[in-house]
C-alpha cells in the first residue's frame, strides 16, 4: 500500500485522489492505472485549478455550434452554411527547452485540434513573448521559435497570417508561445470527438508510438527549473509532412461519411484520446496495446498509454466501413491499425495481448479528477503617483521619443518574423500580417474572415481585472478597425504557479475582466487553454491572457486598411482623450518604469465604437483606420504613414482638440476605445455626425499632407526616416534574414 502510494505521489496524485480511486475500484490500482490517473488528473488535462474560475466565461450565443469544453475547438456558424472552427494552445515549456521543435509541435497540435472537427485549416496566428531582444539567449529563442512555427505551417500549406510578438524582461527564460488555428467547413460536416455505437472499431492512425514526450502533460504542469534541461526527452520532434497526409486523409474520411469520432492524440496521448472520446459518447472502450505500432523496443503498457509522440489520431469508424477507410489511409500512405472497439457501459478495458493492463471506469478517469478551490490573495497594484508623474522630466524632443518607440521591438515592424512564414498560400490572404487584423476572403462567398490574436501582459500584471478587459477590448477594436463584425473568442491564459495565492488572484481577476468584456461586447468564449507554472528561477512571468478573436466582413470589398491613402484626406480621432500615461510603452521604454494605473475601459463605448466602424465601413465613408494601442496616438500616426503605399504624411492642426492635455498623454498615452480614421474632406461632417449618433466623441485633428508627420513646434519626422527605424529594428538586432 505504502509503495503504491509513493508511486502515486511521484505521478502527481494526491493522497485523497489515490484513496478515492482505490475506493471506487475496490482494490489498489496497479502502476499502469496510477500513471493513467496521474496524467488525466494533472492540471494540464483536468483543469483542476482553473475549472471553477473559468465558469464565469459567457459561453452562450446564437452562433455557437459547439460550446466550450464540448470539442477540441470552438465552432461558430457564420451563415451561408459555413462554420468556423478555432482555438489557441500554448507550448511555452517545450519552447523554452527546445525552441524550434517546441514551437513547431505546438503548431502541429493546434492544427490537429481544428481538422479533427472536420474543418480545413485556413489560417494560423500566434502570440509570442520573449525577454529582452538584446540578450543572446532571447535571440536564439526568437530564431528557433520563429523557425519552428514557419517550418510547420509552411510545410502544411496553411498560411501564418498574423499575431503579435512582445518583448519584456519578465519573459527572460520563460517565453510564451501560443498558437492559434482557424478552420472553415460546411456546418453539416461538423465532426466530434465522441465515440458512439457498440462494436464500432477504434483506429489508431499516423506516427508510431515512441518513448518521446513521455509525461509531457505533467511536464507542462511543473515549474520550469534547471531540472527541465534534464527532461529533454519530453520534447518531441514534429513531422509536418506526416501531418499534412493525416489532414488530407481525415478530411476525405469525413467527406466519405465513415467517421463516428475523431480525436487528436495530444497531451496524455492514447489514454486521454480514448477515455475522453468514450466519456463524451457515454460509452466504454476496449483496446489492445499489442496492436499499437511502436518505434521503441520493450515499451511497457504505461509507456504506450502515456507517450506523447506527435502526429497520431484516434478514429472511431462506422462498423462495416472499415475497408473504405483503409483504402483512404492507403492512398495517403498512412499506417492505420484497428486497436479496439467501442463497448457498452462505463468500462475502459486496456489489454496487453491476453493480459489486462488496466480496467477502470471511464467516468472516474475523465471526470473524477479533484477540483481545487485555490486560495486567492490580492496583490497591491503599483501605480505612478501624481507626485512622481509631476517629477518625470518632460522630454525636450518628442521626435526623439517617437524614434525610440518605433525602434523598440514590441512596437517595431515584425516583418523580419512574418516574412519567414508563408502567409499567402491558399490565396485567401487579402490583408497580410502587419495590420490590426489579418483578413482572408472566403472563396465561394462575398464574405471575408477577420482574425486577430492579442494579449496584455503588462496591463494584467499591473491590474489583472483591467488587463482582462483590455485583452478582449483590444482584439475587438482590431477587428472593428478592419470593418469586421467581431463574433467570438478563444483564449490562452498564461500564468504562474496557481498554488501561490497571489498568482491565483491574478488569474481569477483577469478571467473576471475578460468575462465581463465578452458579455458586454457579445463575443462569447468558445474555448481555450490554460497554461500555469510559467515561472523561472527569477519568479513568475507577467500574467498574460491572449485573446484570439474572429469576425466576419459581409462584403469582402469593404475592408478597411491602416495606411493613409491620399493627400488632403482629413484625419479624425474617435474616442475620449484622457490624461493617462500609466502602463504605457512610453513609461517603459523612455523611463524604464512599469507602473499603473492601467487605462480605464468603458465597455459600452467599445461596443459603440464597433458599431460605428461597421456603419462607416458599410457606407464606404472611411479611407483608412487604425486603432490606438501601444505607443498611443504618435505611434498610430507613424504606422498609418509608414504603411501608406504612397508614403502620405500628416499635418496635425493646432487647436482646442488637445483639450489642454500634456503632450506626453496626448501623444503616447494608451487610453482605450480610440480609433484613428481618415476620410475624404467632403465626408468629414458625415463621419463626425455618425460618431455622435453612436454616442462617441470625435474630432478632426489634422490632414494628410506631405511626406512627414508634422506637429508644429512639437514634432517633425519624415516618413522615410520613420520607416527605416520601424522596419529595421529586428534586422539591426538579429542580422539580416534576407537582403533588403
Amino acid at each position, binding site marked *: 500500500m505504502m509503495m503504491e502510494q509513493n508511486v502515486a505521489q511521484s505521478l502527481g496524485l494526491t493522497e485523497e485522489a489515490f484513496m478515492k480511486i482505490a475506493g471506487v475500484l475496490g482494490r489498489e490500482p496497479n502502476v499502469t492505472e496510477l500513471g493513467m490517473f496521474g496524467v488525466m488528473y494533472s492540471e494540464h488535462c483536468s483543469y483542476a485549478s482553473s475549472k471553477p474560475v473559468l465558469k464565469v466565461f459567457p459561453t452562450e450565443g446564437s452562433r455557437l455550434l459547439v460550446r466550450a469544453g464540448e470539442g477540441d475547438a470552438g465552432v461558430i456558424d457564420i451563415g451561408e452554411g459555413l462554420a468556423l472552427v478555432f482555438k489557441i494552445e500554448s507550448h511555452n515549456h517545450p519552447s523554452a527547452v527546445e525552441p524550434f521543435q517546441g514551437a513547431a509541435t505546438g503548431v502541429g497540435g493546434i492544427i490537429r485540434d481544428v481538422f479533427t472537427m472536420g474543418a480545413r485549416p485556413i489560417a494560423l496566428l500566434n502570440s509570442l513573448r520573449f525577454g529582452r531582444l538584446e540578450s543572446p539567449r532571447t535571440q536564439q529563442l526568437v530564431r528557433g521559435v520563429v*523557425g519552428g512555427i*514557419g*517550418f510547420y505551417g*509552411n*510545410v*502544411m*500549406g496553411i498560411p501564418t497570417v498574423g499575431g503579435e510578438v512582445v518583448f519584456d524582461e519578465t519573459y527572460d527564460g520563460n517565453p510564451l508561445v501560443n498558437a492559434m488555428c482557424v478552420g472553415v467547413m460546411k456546418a453539416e460536416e461538423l465532426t466530434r470527438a465522441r465515440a458512439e455505437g457498440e462494436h464500432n472499431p477504434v483506429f489508431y492512425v499516423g506516427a508510431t508510438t515512441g518513448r518521446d514526450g513521455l509525461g509531457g502533460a505533467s511536464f507542462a504542469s511543473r515549474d520550469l527549473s534547471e531540472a527541465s534541461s534534464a527532461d529533454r526527452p519530453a520534447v518531441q520532434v514534429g*513531422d*509536418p*509532412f*506526416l501531418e*499534412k*497526409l493525416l489532414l488530407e486523409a481525415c478530411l476525405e474520411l469525413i467527406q466519405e461519411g465513415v467517421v463516428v469520432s475523431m480525436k487528436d492524440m495530444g497531451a496524455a496521448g492514447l489514454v486521454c484520446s480514448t477515455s475522453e472520446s468514450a466519456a463524451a459518447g457515454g460509452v466504454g472502450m476496449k483496446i489492445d496495446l499489442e496492436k499499437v505500432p511502436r518505434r521503441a523496443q520493450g515499451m511497457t503498457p504505461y509507456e504506450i498509454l502515456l507517450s506523447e509522440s506527435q502526429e497520431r489520431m484516434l478514429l472511431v469508424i462506422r462498423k462495416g466501413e472499415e475497408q473504405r477507410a483503409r483504402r483512404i489511409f492507403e*492512398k*495517403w*500512405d498512412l499506417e492505420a491499425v484497428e486497436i479496439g472497439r467501442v463497448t457498452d457501459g462505463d468500462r475502459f478495458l486496456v489489454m496487453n495481448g491476453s493480459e489486462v493492463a488496466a480496467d477502470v471506469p471511464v467516468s472516474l478517469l475523465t471526470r473524477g479528477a479533484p477540483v481545487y478551490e485555490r486560495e486567492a490573495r490580492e496583490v497591491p497594484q503599483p501605480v505612478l503617483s501624481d507626485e512622481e508623474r509631476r517629477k518625470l522630466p518632460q522630454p525636450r524632443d518628442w521626435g526623439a521619443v517617437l524614434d525610440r518607440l518605433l525602434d523598440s521591438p514590441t512596437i517595431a515592424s515584425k516583418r523580419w518574423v*512574418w*516574412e*519567414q*512564414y*508563408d*502567409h*499567402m*498560400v*491558399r*490565396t485567401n*490572404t*487579402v490583408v497580410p500580417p502587419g495590420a490590426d487584423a489579418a483578413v482572408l*476572403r472566403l*472563396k465561394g462567398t462575398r464574405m471575408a474572415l477577420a482574425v486577430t490574436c492579442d494579449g496584455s501582459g503588462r496591463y494584467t500584471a499591473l491590474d489583472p481585472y483591467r488587463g482582462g478587459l483590455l485583452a478582449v477590448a483590444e482584439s475587438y477594436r482590431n477587428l472593428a478597425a478592419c470593418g469586421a463584425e467581431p463574433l467570438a473568442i478563444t483564449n490562452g491564459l498564461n500564468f504562474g504557479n496557481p498554488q501561490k495565492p497571489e498568482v491565483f488572484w491574478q488569474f481569477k481577476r483577469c478571467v473576471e475582466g475578460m468575462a465581463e468584456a465578452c458579455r458586454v461586447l457579445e463575443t462569447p468564449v468558445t474555448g481555450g487553454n490554460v497554461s500555469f507554472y510559467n515561472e523561472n528561477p527569477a519568479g513568475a512571468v507577467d500574467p498574460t491572457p491572449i485573446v484570439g478573436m474572429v469576425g466576419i466582413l459581409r462584403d*469582402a470589398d469593404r475592408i478597411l486598411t491602416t495606411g493613409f491613402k491620399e493627400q488632403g484626406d482629413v484625419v479624425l480621432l474617435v474616442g475620449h482623450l484622457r490624461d493617462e500615461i500609466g502602463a504605457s510603452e512610453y513609461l517603459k521604454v523612455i523611463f524604464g518604469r512599469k507602473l499603473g494605473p492601467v487605462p480605464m475601459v468603458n465597455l459600452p463605448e467599445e461596443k459603440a465604437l464597433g458599431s460605428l466602424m461597421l456603419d462607416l465601413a458599410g457606407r464606404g465613408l472611411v479611407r483608412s483606420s487604425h486603432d490606438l494601442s501601444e505607443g498611443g496616438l504618435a505611434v498610430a500616426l507613424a504606422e498609418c504613414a509608414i504603411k501608406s503605399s504612397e508614403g502620405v504624411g500628416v499635418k496635425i492642426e493646432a487647436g482646442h482638440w488637445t483639450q489642454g492635455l500634456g503632450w506626453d498623454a496626448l501623444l503616447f498615452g494608451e487610453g482605450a476605445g480610440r480609433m484613428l480614421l481618415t476620410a475624404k474632406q467632403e465626408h468629414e461632417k458625415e463621419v463626425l455626425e455618425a460618431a455622435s449618433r453612436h454616442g462617441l466623441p470625435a474630432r478632426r485633428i489634422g490632414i494628410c499632407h506631405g511626406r512627414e508627420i508634422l506637429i508644429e513646434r512639437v514634432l517633425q519626422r519624415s516618413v522615410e526616416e520613420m520607416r527605416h527605424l520601424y522596419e529595421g529594428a529586428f534586422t539591426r538586432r538579429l542580422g*539580416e*534574414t*534576407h*537582403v*533588403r
Partner: protein
Amino acid sequence: MKFGVIVFPGTKCDHDCLQVLREVLGQEARPVWHKETGLAGFDCLVLPGGFSYGDYLRTGAIARFSPVMETVIQYAERGGAVIGICNGFQILLEAGLLPGAMLRNRTLSFICRDVTLRVDNAQTLFSSLYRAGEVIRMPIAHGEGNYYADSETLARLLGRRQIVLRYASPEGELTERDNPNGSLASIAGIVNERGNVLGLMPHPERASEAALGGEDGRRLFESLIHSLKT
C-alpha cells in the same frame, strides 16, 4: 484548354493553381494524383509548389521518382507544355528536365514576400504577353530557391536565351540587393532548350487576382493559353 495539376504527397499549392486556372481563367483543369500514369488529353501539366515528401532528402528529390513522373518526362520529351512552380521547379531540376540545382537561400531562412522580376525573354510559350525587359511583381515563398549551375550551363542558358525571369530592381537592374536568395545570375525562371518546359520560383498563381494585390502572374498562364491557341 485542359490543364493537369499534379499532386504529390506534400504538395500545397494545387488548390491555388486549380482555382486560378478554373475560376479566373475559365480553363478546364483537374488534379492528377502522383500515382496516376498514362496521362492523356492534357494541353499543359502544372507541377505546383509545396514540400513534396516533406523535402526531407533534398527538395524534389523523392517526388522525382513518383510513378507520374515517368509520364511527365515522356510528355515533355514529346513537346508537351510543362510548368513547374517553386517545388515543381525543384522537381523538374531533379528530374533533369531543366538544368541546374537549388541550394538553400543564402540567408538560410524561408522567405515569403513580393519580389520584382525582369522578363528577359518575352518570346517563350509562357511569356509572350509580357514585354521584353518589363518589370513585374510576384511573390516568392521558399527556403531553397538559390539557383545554381556550373559555368558552362550558365553560358548555355544565356546563349540560348533560356532565362525567362530574373530578380531585378523596380528599374529592371540586376543587383545583389534585389536578389532575395542568392541565385546565380539572379535567375528566377528558366525554360528548357526546346522551350516547352518552364521552371520558376515565384508564384504566378498568387498574383492572378487584383484582390490579392497583383495580377502580373496571370499573364504567364494567359501567354501559354494564347500561344497554344494560335
